[in-house]
Structures are given as C-alpha cells and as structure tokens.
C-alpha cells in the first residue's frame, strides 16, 4: 500500500516536471503543442549519451539535459513556433505532430529503436524498508528534487516580478502588452524553461519510464491529461492533476492490471465532461 503510494507520488511528481512547462505555454499563447514530449526525449538521450558514452556522473547530466533541451526549445520557438501563434488550432496540431514524427525518426536513426538503459550512481541504488514496504532511494530522490522544483516554481510565479508579468500575460495578453510587458520575450523565456524542465524530467525518467523513440508519443497523452485536467491558469492545478494521475495510474496497474490504462482515460474523459475547463480551474 505504502509502496504503491510512494511510487505513485514519485511518478506524479515526475509527470509534473515534464508537463508543467506545457501547461504554462498553452495558457500563455493558447498554443496547442503536442511536441512537448520531444523536448523531454532530448533530455533523456542527452543523459544516456553523457552517462554511458562519456562517463559523466549522473548528477552532472541533469543540468546538461536541462540546458540542452531549453536550447532546443528556444531555437525552435524563435524560428518556427513563433510563426504559428495566430494560426488555427488545427494547423498547430498538425505542425507539432509533424515535429514529433521528425523527432521520433531522428532518435531512431541515431540511437536505435531499442530501449536505453542507464546505470544509476551507487548512492541512488538500493531500497529502504519502512514497515513492510520497500521504497527505492531513487524514487525518494525524485520526490525530493521535484518537490523542491515545484516549490521553487510556485515561488517564482507568485513572488517575483517575472512571475507577476507572466501571470498578467496569461490572464490577458493584450492588456499586458498595452502595459508595456514584452509578451513575446516573456514567452520565449517561458518556453525555454518549460522545455528545459521537460528535458530534466526526461533525464530523470530514463530509469522510471523507459526511453525509446516512441517516448514522445507515449507520454504526450499523459502530458495533455495533466494540462487538460489541471487547467492552464496556475501551477497548483497541474501539480495536483499530476499527483492524481500518477497515483491513479500506478494503483490501477497494481490492483486491476486487467484493464490497464483504461481507467486513466476514463477518468480524464469523465473529468472533462463535468468540468470542461479542468478540475482545478478558477472559472
């Protein structure tokens, strides 16, 4: 029971780090970005290459994954995404699905179709027994790290000048622009941070979620669930949605393996029917 709970929380926290960038960018520009998982994949493969082929320690790989994914994000945002903010949602969907296909084929070409494995450092291996439950250090590490990040993000969003500008822009982009806030620059920065966090999540997730070229599609649905259920106008909503999804998915697969992911989709559709704006939305 406790094992399932901790596993679920770790999984949910990881999903939050992966998806929170998406929820902010979707809220900010009303842009449907299905290629978010591709940035997570960048982070994952960066970690695999650095750790396995170059012998860089795991903890040093994480910032690198963040930086490179953020870099990829800002380059694509400035060159391609920026042309599509005014386009219809259909065009945005098609464009980002195209990016996902390209990312998948590229990953397949350079890294091969098989799943990549990494060797965790010594101090993250092993488990600790609490009562009759076995909890791995790595999951605790994830809960700790992602928890800290979540608190930091919430702080940045509610207590800093940048956060205030961001919230203003999400609320009403036109008025924010009228007040002299450079929404375009704001968005580029946010997009970079969001992609970077996805990259970090991808790096952390290699061990937990598995990494292969289909990663971008496999978890796209989960990211979208987090965003759709959590709403796009705060960071608390996606956080709670991620935890709910993580615990629900782990518990579902543990207790009723017969119906697999069915529960998750059913819950999502159910939530969206009752609350089309998301479970934790203000409206």
């Amino acid at each position, binding site marked *: 029971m406790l094992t399932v709970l901790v596993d679920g929380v770790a999984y949910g926290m990881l999903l939050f780090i992966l998806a929170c960038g998406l929820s902010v960018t979707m809220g900010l520009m009303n842009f449907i970005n299905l290629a978010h998982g591709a940035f997570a994949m960048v982070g994952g493969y960066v970690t695999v290459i650095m750790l396995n082929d170059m012998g860089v320690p795991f903890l040093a790989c994480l910032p690198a994954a963040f930086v490179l994914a953020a870099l990829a994000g800002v380059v694509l945002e400035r060159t391609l995404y920026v042309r599509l903010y005014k386009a219809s949602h259909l065009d945005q969907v098609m464009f980002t699905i195209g990016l996902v296909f390209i990312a998948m*084929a590229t990953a397949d070409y350079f890294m091969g179709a098989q799943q990549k494995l990494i060797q965790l450092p010594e101090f993250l291996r092993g488990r600790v027994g609490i009562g009759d439950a076995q909890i791995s250090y790595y999951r605790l590490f994830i809960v700790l790290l992602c928890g800290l990040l979540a608190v930091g993000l919430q702080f940045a969003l509610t207590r800093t000048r940048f956060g205030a500008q961001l919230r203003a822009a999400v609320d009403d982009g036109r008025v924010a622009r009228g007040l002299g806030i450079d929404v375009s620059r704001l968005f580029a920065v946010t997009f970079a941070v969001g992609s970077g966090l996805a990259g970090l999540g991808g790096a952390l997730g290699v061990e937990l979620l598995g990494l292969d070229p289909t990663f971008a*599609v496999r978890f796209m649905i989960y990211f979208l*669930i987090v965003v759709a259920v959590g709403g796009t106008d705060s960071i608390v909503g996606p956080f709670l949605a991620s935890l709910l999804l993580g615990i629900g998915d782990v518990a579902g697969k543990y207790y009723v393996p017969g119906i697999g992911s069915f529960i998750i989709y059913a819950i*999502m559709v159910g939530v969206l029917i009752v609350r089309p704006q998301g479970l934790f939305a203000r409206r």
Partner: protein
Amino acid sequence: MTQPMVSPKPWWPMEVGFFLIPVAAFFLFPLHLPLITEMMILALFAVSLDLVLGYAGIVSLGHAAFFGLGAYAAGILAQQGWGEPLSGLVFAGAVAGVVGLLTGVLVLRGSDLTRLMVTLGIGMMLFEAANKMNWLTGGADGLQGVMVEPLLGAFQFDIFGHTAFWYAYAGLVVLFYVARRLVHSPFGLCLRGIKTNRLRMSALGSRVNLHLLAVYTVGAMMAGIAGGLLAQTTQFVSLDVLSFERSAEVLLVLVLGGPGRLYGGIIGAVAFTVMHEVLSGFTTHYWQFWLGLVLVLLVLFARGGLLGLVDALRKRAARGTASAAAPERAA
C-alpha cells in the same frame, strides 16, 4: 433575395471525369489493385473526417475510433458466421454511428483543447478495450478467421482483388455522393455558418449543437463503413485500426489534400499513398521523418493543402487574364 440560397448543384464534367480515374487505374495498374483499393478506403475515411473537421470545424484526434469500430464490427460479424458483405457494411456503419451519437454529446462541450482531449481519450479507451478483450477481438494478434461471402451472392472476393476493388470503388462513389448532397444542402450551409461564426448562427436561431451532433454522427457512420470495407476486403482486422497513429494519419491526409472541400480527402489519400510508397521505397525505416517534414512544411507554407495551392495558382492566373468573376470551386 429572390434566388434560393442553395440550388441543387449539378455535377461538373470534371467531377465525373475525376471518378473515372480509378476505373482507368483498374486497367492501367492491374498489379496494384490492393494498393488502390486501400487508397480508396483511406479516401473515404478522409472524406468522413472532412465532414466533421472541414465543414463543422470539430478538431478530432480520435477519428480512428469509428474506423476501428466499423472494422471490428464487420470483421466480428463475418467471423461469427454472418458473412454477407453488404449487411455487414450496414452493421459496421450502424455501430460506429451509434457510438458517434453517444460520444458526440460529450465532444460538443468545451473548447478546442477539451474536444481534442475527449476525442483522443475516447479513441485510446477503445484501443485499450480492444487490446484487452482478447476473446472478442483477438487482442494484439488481430482478428483471425474473417470469412466474407461472395458479393451479391455472385462475386467471390478473389486473390487478385478485382471484386475488392469494385466493392471499395462503389462504396466510395455512393458515400461521396451522399456527402456531396449533404454539404450542398441547407444543412451543410448551416454547418459552414457555425464554423465561421458560431455565436451569430445561434442568434439566427440555428440549433447549433443539434447540427454539430448530426454531422458528427454522419461522419462517424461513414468512417465506420470505411473501416468495414477494409475489414471485408482484407479479411483481417489488426489492432492498429484504432491506434492514435491512424487518427493522426487521416488528419494528415485531409490537411495534405485541403480540408473543407470534399475532394481534398481523395486527393490527399492519393498523394499520401504515393508518398508512402515512394519514401518507404528508399528509406523503409525512417519514412516517418519525411512524413513529419512534409507536415511541417505544409503548415508553414501551404495552409490550404494541395487544393489550396491549386486555388492560389488559379487565382493568380485569373488575375493575369483579368477575368472579373471569381471562379467557383468545384467541390
């Protein structure tokens, strides 16, 4: 206004000629009949999505749900001993239509993102259900033992795919005719109004939700029949008829051809199949890369798809010859 807004649209000679192309293809490429059959089924599937997306503006990421439902309905019926193809097709359309009607109520709520998620979620649910219901669908191994009886009691589905070809051709032509009638009816005009300005249409007294629900159901039915055609002509149903990739693929086909003009779906299906064959010819494994590239370029440079490009060229030519009347579109 004395003239009625909608007059029965006559068939252009060009349109009739267009539907003679497959007949010519039958004699020109006798060795590629299964491929052409599949192309026509894909075209029908894309036309069904065009009704929902191109005319009503509902962005769906789960249209394969109905295609797959139809395929499994027709396949399971034939497997259980009812092998008569035409009634099987009706059954496939009915099952998909009923599910479309039931889920359509859910899809109508919320914004584009919510719709996207609900259609995607329903598609994934069906995929998972089919995956787990081994006893009914054969699970990941696919549905085996589909036995289809001769068409009209006379034409056996042969190994060269002759019967399958004409069967799919007839299905495409008949349903295209239905779709064409539909979009040129007052109902179709209403849909376009809703797509352009939903608020104004409801202010004019149009029952917006009812119209959207109706077209969603019809689209689901047509997709189901397309799926049924696939199941009967290949005598096999695999799990990927319900997959997300298939939903994405049909979206691509439609966007490639040009949404909102019926012929876009058919042109897109031809272009897509040819592209698939050529590209996977020299890079079997990585053709997805080129697919993605085409999508990205399409969105960046040619929003209206192939037919949109044709329109733009035609407009430029018309400007050159200074013809005053804007040429009306064929579809």
